[in-house]
């Protein structure tokens, strides 16, 4: 009956609303208002009519989706700026995907007067909107964006504006480096005997002035980091660097003021410049990805609290025990609660990984993170959002931030030996020169410290890792930072989540074997629409929508078997082979369909495991593999076929269990990589040494992790791991190279022959060699592995 009614109502071609008060016919299409017609015209004019093919426009169930934005408190927290007649807000619109989107969004003012200015950032998929709140509310704005196909995402956490301090530091260092070199030219070419002494002094003092910003602005981070390391009794790579920089500066100032030499200020500026370039190369970030999300990103911003005079939107954090809230279809339960009213069918796939919705009876508990499928329900909160079962995971030790000194980085691990060796060499040469010619002690000791300054050493890892990071990125494997690349090379155990990681989350392509008429397809769809079983849902999605009005009675769902009903006067059955007909010799993984006890066709649900999984597992013989699943063990036989016999498989794992299992492995001395997808893996991802979130679409939510891998690229995991190991070898080879340079330089230094010009050549030369070697060899091996 209801379908019949809807068919008679006139639906606006633009917004999808029913045309109640007004009906405008334009271009043979119905519109509910002039605004919609105007927008349609604009779309057609600009060749954007494709937008009407897009189903993501405001559907009836989305009405009221943004009601909570009328709550001032919530709206205030979202805005960047608010005043009487001018508001500014930054929104994430994941739907932005081409230049037309930019065009459309930046012309938003044509749709509504209140839009003052929109500027888009394509890469970040963000828009800055400045609008007049007196003519347009935030809710209207959100609805407008949603209607034109860009449902906005509101986030409670405000993204920190990325500072571009590093590029300014590089700019300052480059400026000073270039000018110091220019002023040192007379020195380089030996003109200093021909020009006046006063010039020389003038140039030298000018150099000191230019070196000051290099040391105290561009290079200050190295001094700070070294100091921080020393305070924690840890010699990081910045300690020898800081030692070198300070010695360079002090000795140069001494030489210039005492007029004993021209100083090494060009080397100092060059050194800092190259180091900063390395830092910049390494700091490649994926701006549109977030690696630090917690449960709050999954949850809605607000819930609708049932009060005496209707419902009121309140921020999640303000929900108290005993509050009654309304949960609508497809909404997520924000806190542990008890069902008060309505039919609850909760999809816990976020929490447990289990896809099948669970029916909840009145009075039973619903856990935060579940998604209601079906009608609206009323629930009573039993625990605050932050203390709920799922969210309490975030109180775990693994989520406590700790001061990162970079103790794990390869460079820092060898720096203590390096520093001690340098100090030893300096001491020994001092001892030698004390016996031989005491006048030279200071000159030699400072020369040793200067030449040993591990610029090339410090550049090896940033350039190798930065290069690997980019190559991985090209292969849709996005790592958080350079340190993750190094950690990747140490992995010896891999833990897989099953649902969504090994299997595709929108898994199971359904293939119809045999012929069915459109009417028969309608019967199947009707049947499956009444079942929440994942298989039914998949079959339903594979069939075209059918709005014909069939009579539908005697529906029955027999758990573990199938569905039956009388549709349009026919007795139809859908289910396993034995359920349809006891004598039928069915093909496994197929769902059969019969009309009036005659088998008509079957639906083949394709293997749900990701393509190439078996090959991948074969390529990982050196790793200890584990499969952790929140599901029951019905897929164990399938998994056993793919995984080697020594693979541990654990089923029915709660989020906390997964975390504990990772901890156990680590206690056994394993370096663990965890691959997972949902919130239920969040704890394990965080606890593991390298947590990789596997996702179909990298711009959707993924839990906090070290890297994001696009689902389709999971089959290349073995290549990625191998390449990570290659990267480590490249770093070690670069270290060897830079040590060779150091030995040559030290040879000159201890014999007291280090001239400023020699230092000015040796330092950039060693740095450039390392940069060239690490990037070129990285690219070479990537090509060999067909990663680029």
């Amino acid at each position, binding site marked *: 009956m209801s379908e019949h009614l809807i068919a008679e109502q006139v639906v606006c071609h633009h917004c999808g609303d029913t045309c109640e008060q007004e009906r405008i016919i334009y271009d043979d299409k119905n519109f509910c208002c002039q605004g919609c017609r105007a927008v349609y015209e604009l779309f057609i004019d600009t060749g954007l009519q494709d937008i009407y093919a897009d189903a993501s426009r405001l559907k009836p169930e989305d009405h009221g989706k943004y009601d909570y934005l009328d709550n001032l408190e919530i709206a205030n927290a979202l805005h960047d700026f608010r005043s009487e007649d001018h508001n500014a807000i930054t929104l994430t619109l994941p739907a932005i995907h081409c230049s037309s989107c930019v065009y459309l969004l930046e012309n938003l003012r044509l749709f509504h007067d209140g839009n003052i200015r929109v500027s888009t950032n*394509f*890469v970040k998929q963000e828009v800055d909107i400045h609008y007049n709140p007196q003519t347009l509310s935030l809710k209207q704005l959100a609805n407008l964006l949603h209607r034109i196909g860009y449902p906005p995402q509101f986030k409670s956490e405000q993204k920190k504006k990325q500072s571009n301090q590093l*590029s300014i530091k590089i700019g300052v260092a480059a400026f000073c480096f270039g000018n110091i070199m220019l002023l040192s030219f007379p020195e380089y070419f030996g003109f200093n005997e021909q020009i006046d002494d006063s010039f020389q002094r003038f140039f030298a003092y000018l150099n000191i002035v230019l070196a000051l910003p290099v040391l105290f602005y561009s290079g200050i981070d190295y001094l700070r980091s070294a100091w921080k390391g020393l305070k924690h009794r840890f010699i990081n790579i910045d300690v020898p660097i800081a030692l070198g920089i300070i010695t360079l500066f002090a000795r140069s100032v001494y030489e210039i003021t005492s007029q004993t030499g021209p100083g090494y200020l060009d080397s100092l500026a060059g050194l800092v410049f190259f180091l900063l370039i390395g830092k910049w190369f390494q700091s490649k970030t994926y701006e549109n990805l977030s690696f630090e999300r917690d449960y709050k990103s999954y949850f809605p911003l607000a819930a609708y609290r049932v009060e005496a005079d209707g419902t009121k939107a309140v921020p999640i954090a303000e929900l108290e025990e005993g509050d009654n809230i309304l949960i609508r279809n497809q909404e997520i339960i924000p806190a542990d609660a008890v069902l008060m009213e309505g039919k609850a069918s909760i999809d816990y796939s976020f929490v447990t990984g289990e896809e099948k919705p669970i029916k909840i009876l009145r009075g039973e508990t619903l856990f935060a993170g579940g998604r209601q499928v079906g009608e609206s329900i009323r629930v009573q909160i039993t625990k605050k959002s932050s203390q709920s079962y799922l969210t309490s995971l975030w109180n775990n030790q693994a989520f406590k931030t700790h001061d990162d000194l970079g103790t794990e980085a390869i460079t820092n691990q060898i720096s203590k030996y390096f520093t001690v060796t340098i100090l030893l060499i300096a001491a020994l040469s001092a001892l030698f020169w004390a016996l031989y010619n005491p006048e030279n002690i200071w000159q030699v000791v400072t020369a040793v410290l200067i030449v040993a300054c591990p610029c090339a050493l410090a550049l090896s890892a940033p350039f190798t890792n930065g290069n690997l990071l980019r190559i991985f990125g090209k292969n849709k494997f996005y790592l958080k930072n350079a340190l993750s690349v190094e950690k990747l090379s140490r992995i010896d155990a891999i833990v897989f989540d099953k649902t969504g990681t090994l299997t595709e989350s929108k898994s199971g392509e359904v293939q119809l074997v045999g012929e069915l008429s459109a009417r028969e397809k309608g019967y199947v769809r009707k049947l499956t629409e009444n079942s929440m079983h994942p298989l039914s849902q998949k079959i339903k999605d594979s069939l075209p929508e059918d709005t014909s009005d069939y009579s539908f009675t005697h529906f029955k769902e027999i758990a573990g078997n199938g569905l039956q009903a009388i549709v349009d006067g026919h007795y139809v059955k859908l289910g396993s082979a034995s359920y349809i007909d006891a004598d039928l010799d069915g093909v496994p993984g197929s769902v059969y369909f019969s009309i009036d006890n005659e088998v008509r066709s079957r639906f083949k649900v394709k293997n749900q495991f990701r393509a190439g999984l078996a090959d991948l597992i074969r390529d990982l013989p050196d790793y200890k593999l584990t499969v952790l699943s929140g599901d029951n063990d019905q897929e164990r036989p399938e998994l056993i076929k793919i995984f080697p016999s020594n693979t541990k498989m654990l089923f029915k794992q709660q989020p906390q269990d997964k975390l504990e299992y990772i901890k156990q492995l680590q206690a056994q001395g394993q370096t663990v990589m965890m691959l997972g997808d949902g919130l239920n893996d969040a704890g394990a991802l965080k606890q593991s040494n390298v947590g990789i979130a596997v996702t179909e679409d990298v711009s959707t939510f993924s839990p906090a992790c070290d890297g994001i891998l696009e689902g389709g690229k999971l089959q290349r995991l073995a290549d990625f791991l191998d390449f990570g190991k290659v990267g480590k070898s490249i770093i070690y080879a670069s270290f060897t190279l830079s040590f060779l340079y150091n030995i040559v330089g030290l040879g000159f230094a201890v014999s007291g022959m280090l001239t400023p010009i020699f230092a000015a050549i040796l330092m950039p030369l060693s740095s450039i060699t390392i940069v060239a070697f690490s990037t070129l060899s990285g690219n070479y091996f990537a090509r060999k592995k067909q990663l680029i």
Partner: protein
Amino acid sequence: MSVIFILILISMVVAGSFLGLFIWASKSGQFDDSVTPGMRILFDDKKKQSKK
């Protein structure tokens, strides 16, 4: 030859002002988004065209 003092100081001022410009551009966010402006420049203003 002492004109060199003045020349070098002037060159420093000129170079320094370019550095200042760079810092200003960087701080005002001109390097934040290097993709979208390139798209924006290709859009024609349809309204003006239809009036022609």
